[in-house]
């Protein structure tokens, strides 16, 4: 994602100069942005101005259904962060230190309608993409991977050294080809992205090759035992040790250790009817017991209650992978499983439920 020129970021009219005649532009600025356009004085004109009207419900007048839905989406609620912090015993009651930390560090990930449909997201420094024109479908690289870039984006676009782009990408698919309705939420408040009734699964498209009736023997044998990614994804980034900090001037930032490429199969931490798999791909997430240390001591008192190696769906799907070349490339191969030796000593307890103690043996002929 290249940097936008300053003028590109702010000019309302695109090259066609048509915003003023478009559906959203035809009635002027104030109907959405408020302020006072009749005043030539900047301070007066900007009194009450809403830079991002979508953060103040301006879209709901016309797009009521979508906005009502979106209010419960992860993009809007950030409930995924809350779920994981609370699962580690974090106190998110009003006025707590963690609420302050979330406000400083996590809120910038919260997105509004406009940050996907008009400009780049604030967390990627914003800026118009095509003047003030509204885009019904956000741009993959300017919007989606502007936030979901370092892991999903790099995987999908093939930007991790030595790893090909996802097969779906090579077929020309964009994020929204798979992820559409779910991005505005399911209408229910979701705990995390794996609990969205609208979300897509591989079977939605590949039902003909998945299941006990599949012609592919491997698919028959491993149906519902392995998640698709166990056989069809390859090395991905794992992140460690995120610390949030605040400079003396008040600038909020985070620091992480360099990411590490790897591929680990472990036990499914969120086994359910929808995700019955015994083995899944696990990714190390950047959390550490000291993540919020700059705000106070022991703010995640129950750190070990949730694994640091988490259920993952790497976006680098390939037809052929090193582990699906034959039975012996997976069975008995300790190096592709998350074994106790792969886990840091102080995280062994947290990952108790996902660590593989006994690697599936080589099947007898």
């Amino acid at each position, binding site marked *: 994602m290249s940097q936008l020129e300053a003028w590109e970021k702010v000019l309302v009219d695109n090259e066609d100069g048509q915003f003023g005649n478009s*559906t959203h532009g*035809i*009635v*002027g*600025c*104030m*109907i*959405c942005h*408020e302020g006072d*356009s*009749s005043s030539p004085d900047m301070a007066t004109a900007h009194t*009450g101005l809403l830079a991002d009207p979508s953060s103040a419900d*301006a879209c709901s*007048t*016309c797009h*009521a259904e979508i906005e009502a839905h979106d209010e419960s989406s992860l993009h809007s609620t950030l409930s995924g962060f809350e779920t994981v912090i609370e699962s580690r015993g974090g106190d998110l009651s009003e006025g707590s230190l963690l609420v302050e930390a979330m406000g400083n560090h996590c809120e910038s990930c919260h997105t509004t309608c406009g940050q996907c449909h008009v400009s780049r997201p604030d967390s990627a420094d914003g800026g118009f993409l095509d003047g003030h024109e509204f885009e019904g479908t956000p741009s993959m690289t300017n919007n989606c991977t502007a936030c979901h870039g370092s892991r999903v984006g790099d995987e999908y676009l093939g930007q991790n050294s030595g790893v090909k782009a996802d097969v779906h990408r090579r077929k020309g698919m964009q994020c929204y080809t798979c992820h559409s309705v779910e991005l505005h939420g399911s209408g229910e408040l979701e705990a995390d992205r794996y609990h969205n009734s609208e979300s897509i699964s591989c079977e939605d498209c590949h039902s003909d090759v998945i299941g006990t009736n599949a012609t592919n023997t491997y698919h028959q044998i491993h149906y519902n035992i392995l998640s698709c990614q166990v056989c069809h994804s390859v090395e991905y980034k794992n992140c460690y040790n995120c610390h949030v900090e605040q400079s003396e001037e008040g600038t909020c930032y985070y620091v992480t250790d360099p990411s590490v490429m790897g591929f680990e199969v472990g036990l499914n931490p969120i086994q359910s009817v929808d995700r019955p798999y015994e083995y899944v791909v696990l990714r190390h997430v950047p959390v550490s017991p000291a993540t919020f240390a700059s705000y106070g001591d022991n703010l995640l008192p129950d750190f070990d209650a949730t694994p640091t190696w988490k259920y993952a769906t790497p976006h680098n799907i390939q037809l052929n992978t090193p582990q699906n070349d034959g039975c012996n490339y997976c069975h008995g191969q300790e190096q592709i499983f998350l074994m106790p030796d792969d886990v840091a000593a102080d995280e062994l307890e947290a990952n108790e439920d996902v660590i593989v103690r006994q690697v599936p043996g080589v099947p007898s002929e």
Partner: protein
Amino acid sequence: MEISRRSFLKASGGLAGLAVCQPLVTKTAQAATDADSASHKAMLIDVTKCVGCWYCYAACKKQNGYPEVNRPTPDDPPDLAHNVWTTLHISEKDGVQRFRKQACMHCTDAACVRVCPTGALSYNELGFVQYDKEKCSGCGYCTQYCPFEIPRLDEEAISNDRIDKCTFCFSRVTAGGQTACSAACPTGAIKFGNRGELLEEGKARVTELQKDNAKASLYGDSDVLGGLHVMYVLDDAAESYGLPADPTLPAPAVVHEVIQWVGIGAFFAMVGGFSLNYLVARARIAREEKK
């Protein structure tokens, strides 16, 4: 050419009489024009499609040179005023807010045109009620007699208190364009077009709505003041949307014409009186001169 005093009086009396009759003749003739005339333009407003975005209100302000506006809150909708020519009438049913765009209905038989003494309000050949602010004397008759309470006086400008109301975007429409509000409407709730076609479209839409809702109706066909040039597709009783169920011309608007004829009669009686007076006086002067 030398004009005798006698011929001047004859000519000027005749001209004055014609001048008095002229506006009345024109008004009556145009009011009788068929509202379904192929040339007539109209707007069809489908309240079931209105989401209350206020774009029509903002577009109207912009079109007519008023300062830009913030989006009003539904709890405090602006009333029509000399500088608010279109607004939303908001009603509530079963806890849900319903919106109706409210502005001049451009009646075929318009009370405002009937009572306007200066000809500021008149019928356009495209069917709508046009307004010439230069001719307005600010008498306010139209504000009193409009059955929809549309025209509003600028009461703050005491020295220049003229009325204002929707002009049907005179300059845009006469140039072949559509009204600003219909152009801005993002949901298609406001449609601009030929009245005959919109009437058919409105009837078809009502038939569709009536499958689920017996209360659905079309408001503004020829049964309402000769036919409105702003018609509504309603999904509930007209009164519940703040519209009179059976708007009629207020009595004074009808009597106005009678009074106007009485005035014309009085004018001719006066001219006749002066003529008689002149003849009698001339005869007496002649008699006295003979003496």
